[in-house]
């Protein structure tokens, strides 16, 4: 199982690829909407790419609870364990 830092790095790569936000800005305390300026459609793309990369399922009703990068990393850690 990937470490918290490995998941954050993987997620940062995805966010960078889809939105162009620099990977180093994608830190655990950052809010997807307020800090990284990721809108709901880009969030869908991030979620789909994360599902593929980490082999997890992130249900639609769960996505709105993933406010920060840390929330997403925690969810992926739990879903993958």
């Amino acid at each position: 199982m990937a470490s918290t830092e490995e998941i954050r790095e993987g997620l940062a790569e995805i966010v960078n690829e889809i939105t162009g936000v620099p990977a180093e800005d994608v830190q655990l305390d950052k809010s997807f909407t307020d800090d990284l300026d990721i809108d709901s459609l880009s969030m869908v793309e991030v979620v789909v790419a994360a599902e593929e990369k980490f082999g997890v399922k992130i249900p639609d009703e769960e996505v709105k609870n993933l406010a920060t990068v840390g929330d997403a990393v925690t969810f992926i850690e739990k879903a993958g364990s």
Partner: protein
Amino acid sequence: MSGITIQPVAEPRASRILGIGGYRPSRVITNAEVIEQIDSSDEWIRTRSGIESRRWATDEETVVSMSLAAAGKALADAGVQPAQLDCVIVSTVTHLYQTPSAAAEIAHKLGTNQAAAFDISAACAGFCYGLSLASDMVRAGTAGHVLVIGVERLSDLTDQTDRSTAFLFADGAGAAVVGPAASPDDGGIGPVVWGSDGEHLDLIRQREDWRDALHNEAGPAMPHLVMQGNQVFRWASYEMAKAAQQALDAAGVTVDDLDVFVPHQANMRITDAMARQLKLPERVAIARDIATQGNTSAASIPLAIERMLETGEAQSGDFALIIGFGAGLVYAAQVIRIP
């Protein structure tokens, strides 16, 4: 008797699109006009959909009149006379008569020789569905020339106070004439990859049926279209990219052979996501008609092709990947040659 007489197909033949034409309604509706009724902004609409303005029809620009205009251009482009048409297929969800069909009226007003005529309901996939039917008719010898029309007045069924759809839906008509190719090797309509997924019929739908709309407690009102935007975005961007790839595979065409990509103009963000998924080379021209036309459902693909021919982004003979997808859910994709 020994059975039904079956006419053998004389020669194996291929089909192709011989001509294409569109009609864009006269009213240009800006984002500024749309946001008078919704809590939104020009910037929000542009970033979420790529739409700068859209076309809405006037009362005089009806489903039938817009279809006749588009069909006239397609027939002229094809060099085909109305009397040569054996069938007229109209795809629409906004011809507000349950019966008779728009197709029968259009076939008559065009001056066909009493061509077979019917409407189909396949929402935003309607043009590709109609094209598949037309192609099979021509190949089987059921018809010589078939007119396929996609036409909508979605503004009639749009809730102009719904911030998730008011900026999106628009009106217009597009038509294509399908006929036999010069030789079996000269076919211009590849195998269709199509299907439906009724489990997700709630994602895009008319909110209530006509009976409920008429007996509404607050008084009779037009039924409206509703959509779960994010879920539709996910389905369209990923599942539809797979269907598009299957259509390429079925036609024996790779992305490197492709010249033009014309997805249903649903949302620029869907187009971008699909293009990324398909890993289209940069040289492939991508239809972006939605920017000034909005989402015209069944009409969007022929309208987008017409625009690309006008701007020179597409040339006659180009290989194009087309895919329609929408309420149902339904979808259909083909590789075609641009007429």
